């Protein structure tokens, strides 16, 4: 029994990244490293990056992981979103591409979100656009926040509530 447990522990401890993370990636100890240039030195230093990115696909030819495919998500009503939390999230995740009210450096890759309420889109539609916009437009540049695990279901509900509240 002790051996069995030891075997199980070994199996579980086998780091997933051994098989997944390509050897030409800037990774150390299973975590993302960022190159650091040191003046007047012939060595390139690497320091831990502020966030670990190893779980997503790289450009390495050795990378055998699949891109998560476009996914539909059936949002169940009621929305039950918190628009204040949604606003905070929008300023963190959406502002680079979309213009939000009160922004002085508006991004214009996506459409402006000022007066969004006027469109009267259905909640589940907006939810799907944020969860995975590829369902509507396979060539979209908008990240699939749900499918790629960037935002949780409740966070997307909060964002929908915020967008629907922009007068």
């Amino acid at each position, binding site marked *: 029994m002790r051996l069995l447990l*030891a*075997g199980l522990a*070994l199996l579980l401890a086998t780091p997933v990244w051994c098989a997944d993370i390509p050897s030409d990636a800037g990774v150390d100890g299973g975590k*993302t490293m960022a190159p650091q240039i040191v003046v*007047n030195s*012939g060595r390139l230093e690497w320091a831990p990056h502020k966030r670990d*990115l190893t779980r997503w*696909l790289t*450009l390495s030819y050795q990378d055998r992981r699949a891109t998560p495919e476009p996914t539909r998500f059936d949002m169940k009503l009621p929305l039950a979103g918190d628009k204040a939390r949604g606003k905070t999230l929008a300023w963190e995740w959406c502002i680079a591409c979309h213009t939000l009210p009160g922004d002085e450096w508006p991004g214009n890759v996506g459409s402006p979100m000022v007066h969004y309420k006027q469109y009267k889109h259905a909640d589940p539609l907006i939810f799907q656009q944020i969860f995975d916009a590829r369902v509507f437009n396979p060539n979209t540049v908008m*990240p699939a926040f749900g499918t790629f695990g960037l935002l949780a279901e409740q966070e997307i509900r909060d964002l929908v509530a915020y967008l629907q509240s922009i007068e």
Partner: protein
Amino acid sequence: MKTPFFLLAGFLTASALAQDIPYREYEPFERYEPIVSGDLMLSGTYQHWKDPANLDFRMAGNPDENWKLNWKFMDPPFNQTVHGGHFAVDRGERLFKQLDVYGTFASCLSDRSGSPRNLRAGYPRWRADLGRVAGLEEVIEHCGAKQGRVLQNGSYDNSAISIYLASIGNGQPINIDVTAGPMKASFERGRRLFHAKAGAFNFSCASCHTHNIGKRLRGNVITTIYGDVAHYPVYRTQYMLQSLQLRFAECNLDTRTQPLRPGSQPYTDLEVFVTALTNGYPISVPAERDW
């Protein structure tokens, strides 16, 4: 009792490796026209960047409007003020001359053909001795190591030598041949990679650099990839001295994509692709970039 678990673990790893080509997404890359409406709105110069024959620094018009072009027109010889890039050129010259006392460093870099002046304009190229297509920085690391000198690809000293070699070729048009052989193969792989989506946001290089040119990502204006290589490595305050492949790593990190190591095959293929798009543009270093 332990063995079955080892077998199982081994099996899981092996099956992960044996899979067919997994699901991938690409920005369309056959016969497309880059979407440049953003640039036309902003500066209206994209078409000139695409064609080096039309290159004219006066296009920037009012010097205060240079930011619209993301500094491309502020590069030397147009920016005469002294910045960190000039110190890097000086250090690169000293290092180069130290290593080249017997002429061995230069002949290693050029693979025994041609003058150091022509190195920048002709790299990346096929190196029979390495058995692969290599960028100038990779070869600087390789030739340094032959003399026991550590010059890691992407390090300050490596890029300093690279920027020095570029500086003695200032004005020469970038000229690499990607029409045949391993260079063509590398170019094609690079073209595909440039359009391959990756990372947490599922972006490709083309998502920004060909399909959203001139648009704003908050404070940043995205520019075309044409002509970029002619002013690399660049001086940037935050990074001191940045090689082209470290710029790739930065764009990867900025878009939440795990970066690769400089000198890796994919980065070299990308370098071949963007260098070919710079063919015809005159080398102009040392250039300075914002922050």
